[in-house]
């Protein structure tokens, strides 16, 4: 018990020192930190603790893709597709194409006609890979009396919803970045949701406005040099390579684009390309423009930024074409996402919003700090008057324990929230529990007439099993809280869990080391406990 290897002592002191070093930058005042960060190279910039939105102020917005609206667009596109197939196959139907909530139906009286169009209708599903790798987006049914029904399946809608989320994330990221705030975070949540977190925003209304806008996609010609300046405007390029002159006249609207998918050039190089397709109106306009302007650059403008400006090589009259430009697979993928975002803007609803003003955030930090100082102070004094010199050891261990929690938060990049501070204050109360368990056990053993060394030894040994058992149960509660909780509550779970883990090191090993060193020098005849 009292023989402590030197390397162990060094290791514990080293860990403590490391923890303090990790925590130090977060404890600095903002100007002091900036002065330090400026003198260091970027890679050595010390990480600081990340404050949750409830502490630094900011907005948390959860958006949900409107599934019904996605389905509606899908049904409308399906109707167009069916119409095109009927025309291509020159099939006559009785009555029109009826649209329903989940699909379309049409009456094809001739069996031969049905045989012609059914494979075509089924091929609309081609190329679909559902989320689990199976399923069909469309279901084609044929009734005896010539009624053909095409229905969008759940898998089909979910697939579109997921794509809508992908493209919306791209669009939102661009817009939020334009706000110029620090470290916005935009994440997918489940199938149909997006969480946007923007810290330190002065005007949450502005954020909601830009989140609510639908993307605007336009196809416009790049201006020739010497063109009349009143017809031209300078637009930013999305890749950051400066501005470019674009004709003001919009040649084709994004809403006429029906699809854009990444693919590979099959005729020539096999390099990644983006395939796109227009509806009838779009195809006609696109054909006209490309016929008249072969050789010129045709700009694709999303939200007033030029995302690409390919050269028109040949007239594209069929309504579908290909953009190539030595893309990487990722670039082709991104471009097609952006094109789709402009073509099929998904309607997003705000289903949850939490905004904390910067003033309230600062108040919460102050309140949390005050509660932590007073709570720690009370516990420290109480331990001192109860256990005397052993209380000093417990308090030192408590100090290191808190340093470990903060270091853990910094290293994990975990967010400190107000409930997280509450969790830390709570672990202050609980951390000394391990010390109390040990000390009471030592007392008891001494009382039972054991020698000093035997009491210390038995105290630590016996209490340890209890400490492990009781902390495992608490840790389980914290872990479950982490996996099920959200935002601030997660912060609480992390603080609690970290506190439980570090207490094993600080309250058990560190205290034992301190007592061993103390015993070595003090040589007490009786334990003052």
């Amino acid at each position, binding site marked *: 018990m009292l023989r402590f290897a030197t390397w162990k002592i060094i290791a514990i002191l080293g860990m403590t020192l490391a923890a303090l070093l990790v925590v130090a930058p977060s404890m600095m005042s903002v100007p002091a930190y900036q002065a330090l960060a400026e003198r260091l190279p970027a890679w050595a910039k010390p990480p600081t603790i990340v404050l949750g939105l409830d502490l630094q102020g900011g907005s948390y917005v959860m958006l949900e893709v409107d599934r019904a609206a996605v389905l509606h667009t899908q049904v409308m596109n399906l109707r167009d597709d069916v119409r095109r197939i009927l025309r291509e196959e020159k099939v006559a139907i009785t009555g029109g194409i009826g649209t329903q909530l989940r699909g379309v139906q049409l009456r094809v009286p001739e069996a031969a006609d049905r045989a012609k169009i059914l494979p075509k209708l089924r091929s609309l599903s081609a190329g679909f890979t559902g989320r689990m790798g199976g399923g069909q987006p469309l279901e084609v049914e044929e009734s005896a009396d010539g009624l053909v029904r095409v229905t969008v399946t759940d898998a089909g809608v979910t697939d579109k919803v997921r794509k809508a989320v992908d493209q919306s994330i791209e669009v939102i990221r661009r817009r939020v970045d334009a706000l110029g705030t620090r470290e916005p975070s935009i994440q997918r949540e489940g199938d149909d949701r997006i969480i946007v977190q923007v810290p330190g925003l002065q005007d949450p209304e502005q954020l909601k406005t830009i989140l609510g806008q639908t993307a605007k996609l336009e196809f416009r010609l790049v201006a020739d040099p010497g063109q009349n300046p009143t017809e031209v405007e300078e637009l930013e390029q999305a890749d950051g390579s400066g501005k470019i002159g674009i004709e003001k006249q919009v040649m084709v609207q994004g809403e006429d684009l029906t699809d854009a998918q990444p693919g590979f050039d099959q005729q020539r190089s096999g390099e990644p390309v983006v395939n796109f397709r227009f509806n009838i109106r779009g195809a006609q306009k696109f054909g006209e423009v490309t016929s008249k302007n072969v050789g010129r650059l045709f700009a694709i403008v999303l939200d007033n930024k030029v995302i690409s400006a390919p050269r028109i090589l040949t007239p594209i009259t069929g309504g579908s074409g290909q953009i190539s430009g030595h893309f990487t697979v990722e670039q082709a993928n991104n471009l097609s996402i952006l094109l789709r975002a402009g073509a099929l803007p998904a309607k997003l*609803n705000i289903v949850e919003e939490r905004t904390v003003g910067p003033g309230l955030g600062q108040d919460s930090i102050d309140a949390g700090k005050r509660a932590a100082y007073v709570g720690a102070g*009370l*516990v420290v004094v109480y331990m001192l008057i*109860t256990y005397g010199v052993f209380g000093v050891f417990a308090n030192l261990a408590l100090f290191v324990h808190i340093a470990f929690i903060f270091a853990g938060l910094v290293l994990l990049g975990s967010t400190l929230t107000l409930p997280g501070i509450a969790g830390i204050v709570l672990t202050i109360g609980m951390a000394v529990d391990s010390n109390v368990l040990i000390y009471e056990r030592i007392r008891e053993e001494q009382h039972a007439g054991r020698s000093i060394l035997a009491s210390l030894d038995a105290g630590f040994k016996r209490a340890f099993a209890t400490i492990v058992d009781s902390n495992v149960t608490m840790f389980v509660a914290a872990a479950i*809280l982490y996996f099920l*909780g959200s935002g601030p509550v997660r912060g609480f779970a992390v603080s609690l869990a970290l506190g439980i883990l570090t207490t094993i090191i600080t309250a058990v090993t560190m205290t034992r080391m301190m007592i061993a060193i103390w015993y070595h020098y003090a040589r007490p005849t009786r334990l003052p406990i």
Partner: protein
Amino acid sequence: MKLLRLAPENTKFPFMRFRRVSYPFSALLSLISVVLFIFHGMNFGIDFAGGTVIELRAKSGTAEISTLRALSEKLELGEIEVQSFGNPADATLRFGLQAGGDAAQQAAVEKVRAAAGADYELRRVEVVGPRVSNELVQSGTLGVVLSIIAVLTYLWFRFEWQFAVGAVIATMHDLLLTVGFFSLTQLEFNTTSIAAILTIVGYSLNETVVVLDRIREMMRKYKKMPTAQMIDLSINAVLPRTIMTATTVFLALLSLVVFGGQVIRSFSLAMIWGIFVATYSSVFICSPMLIYLGLRNEDADKAQAPSPTKEPAKPEREPATSGDESTELAPVSAAPKTPSRGKKPPTKNSGRSKPKTA
């Protein structure tokens, strides 16, 4: 230096005897909690009920609650709750879900902003839609259930099954009483309250495990001691620690209640209630449960009868032990009639400690 001792030294409280009081008492409290929950209900915050909370601060002077109420009633957003707290310049508005879906929620916030924005700063705006609140209810309930199952499993592996059952019954008891506390005080019940409940579950199990650990140790050490006596001995041994830890956690929580601010006050208050209940249940609910569940087989309890050692082995011990198993329904008045009911602490001052606590 004279050190402070909160718990008296070497206590010999016959805790197990209290189970005839503590069980009906806890049953009554649990029943009251259920009744409160059903008929009085909980003050569900917007996390679970959906709706909007807006925290306002007057740009100058104090927040006029009556003006705010009159002003918000004009907006026709359904029932609006206007409250002041702490700082006189602050007030909160809370109103329920608006008819017309998520867009209507946003429109309602806009209305408030337009009406109050000139005189008040909107310091906090929280809007929770109906689908999200439903999910939060589900994940909250799931979390509590899962944690109980997980811990039950752990305890089952680590201890005898009786311990696990006792711990879970004690935890359920704490859970019920905490729900009753929320209902009685009408503290807002939100996601941080779920965090409080899970932490109480954790703390309660922590307490229980400390007691159970000692009981297990004593069980091995005193193979022949009657169960109730052995449990009493264990609880008395860990009593100083129980009191000490409850006090330190209480001090930390007290500081959170006083200084931690509005947002976590309901969390901290619930936690304080929780540590009291958890401490109580680990001693008075979980431990006696071991007797009822027959922690030791009858042989172990009976085996000691023919071997009177230096411990005060009363002749009635054997009937008392078996009587012990049937006391669940025995009238309380029967207790004082038999002055030596066998469950005495083994030491010489057993006679002294009894009247103290009877």
